[in-house]
């Protein structure tokens, strides 16, 4: 247990994606260093997921269902994320210069241009900004398709520039369906991406799987090309601590 344990309000804000990249990093570090805290954060993610499930789209009368949720949840975030992912790729593979602070969040990254950039360095001073962590916690099928398209675009752009690129997806929460063998809307697409691009790793949270198994009373399998990590939150925290560019999806 760390001396400066985040308050309940802070943990909730973390789960709801309310933080600036800097604050998010600080909270992630606290979580990574405390197993109990990590479990509490997973609980909050799961509680959020349960509430969403209890009132999801299928409880709305058919007469009211229409072209809704065009924004897909948090207002306008997806366009920003997509733009951020693409911008990360463009910035990273072209080895543009960019400060560490600018690398922390997609919004800053998206705003970064070749003319206003600084040195491309990790916190340790190692020149390597081609490591991108995509923390996928809440996507529907349409959004997942855009995400996979963006990943492919990143690798294609990197290949065109002769650059190495590492991308890791860490999937958990309501996004778990994306990597489940029985529910994934794009199993072949994910397989093709993983087989085509050696720098791509798709990981899923083992704790989330255990919870889903208990909820559904049956064994859940991930797609064969998906690697399981013990805790999605901890994996994200660890990678960010190692200097990976962190993007929450």
């Amino acid at each position: 247990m760390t001396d400066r344990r985040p308050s309940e309000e802070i943990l909730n804000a973390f789960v709801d994606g309310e933080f600036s990249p800097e604050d998010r990093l600080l909270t992630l570090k606290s979580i990574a260093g405390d197993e109990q805290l990590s479990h509490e954060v997973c609980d909050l993610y799961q509680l959020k997921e349960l509430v969403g499930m209890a009132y999801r789209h299928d409880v709305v009368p058919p007469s009211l269902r229409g072209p809704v949720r065009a924004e897909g949840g948090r207002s306008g975030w997806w366009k920003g994320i997509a733009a951020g992912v693409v911008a990360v790729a463009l910035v990273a593979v072209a080895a543009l210069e960019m400060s560490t602070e600018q690398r922390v969040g997609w919004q800053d990254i998206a705003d970064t241009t070749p003319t206003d950039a600084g040195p491309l360095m990790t916190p340790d001073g190692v020149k390597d900004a081609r490591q991108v962590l995509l923390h996928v916690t809440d996507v529907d099928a349409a959004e997942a398709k855009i995400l996979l398209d963006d990943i492919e675009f990143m690798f294609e752009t990197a290949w065109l520039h002769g650059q190495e690129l590492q991308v890791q997806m860490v999937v958990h929460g309501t996004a778990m369906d994306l990597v489940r063998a029985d529910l994934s809307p794009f199993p072949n697409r994910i397989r093709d991406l993983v087989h085509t691009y050696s720098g791509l790793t798709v990981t899923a949270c083992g704790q989330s799987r255990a919870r889903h198994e208990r909820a559904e009373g049956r064994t859940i399998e991930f797609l064969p090309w998906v690697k399981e990590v013990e805790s999605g939150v901890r994996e994200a925290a660890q990678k960010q601590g190692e200097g990976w560019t962190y993007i929450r999806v």
Partner: protein
Amino acid sequence: MATWLAQRRLRQQVCDMRAQLYRTAFAWCHDAALADDLVQEAIIKALTRLKTLQDEAALKAWVFRIMTNCYRDWGRRQKDTVDVDTMELACEDCPEAQTERSRVVHDVRCAMAQLSDDHRQVVALVDLEGFAYAEVSEVLEVPIGTVMSRLSRARTQLRKLLLEQAAATSPTLRLVRNRHD
């Protein structure tokens, strides 16, 4: 012409929010007929006041604020007969607990129904509609710190209620406690 087109586009956007509004209204009151009435009232008010909207980007929060006020008005009208904060909300739309998933849905809705009105509103806006805290602050017209504290307390209580339900009736929701002991 441009203004007319903009108004027409906004009207369409308001109408497209019906399902979202209904889901949130239902999560607040757990009464299908009342939720329908609230949505209808909110949409009519939004459409008639559309020209007063200052910032088009804030349309969604603006419409939800209108529905919040409709709900408050309804609560005030009920005050003489029933206290909206303490009344027992019927889960009439809850599915029977025949499958694991429907049991979870049932349990979560019942737990939500036991929250205070303020807490239930915040949870629904954040978890169902994905509003940012600043937007919730605008919708409910309370400071952002109040949003954070209400949400934190609401989730703490929700978790407690779900654990109690799980212990009393079903093993299904033990999953809300992510423990490995």
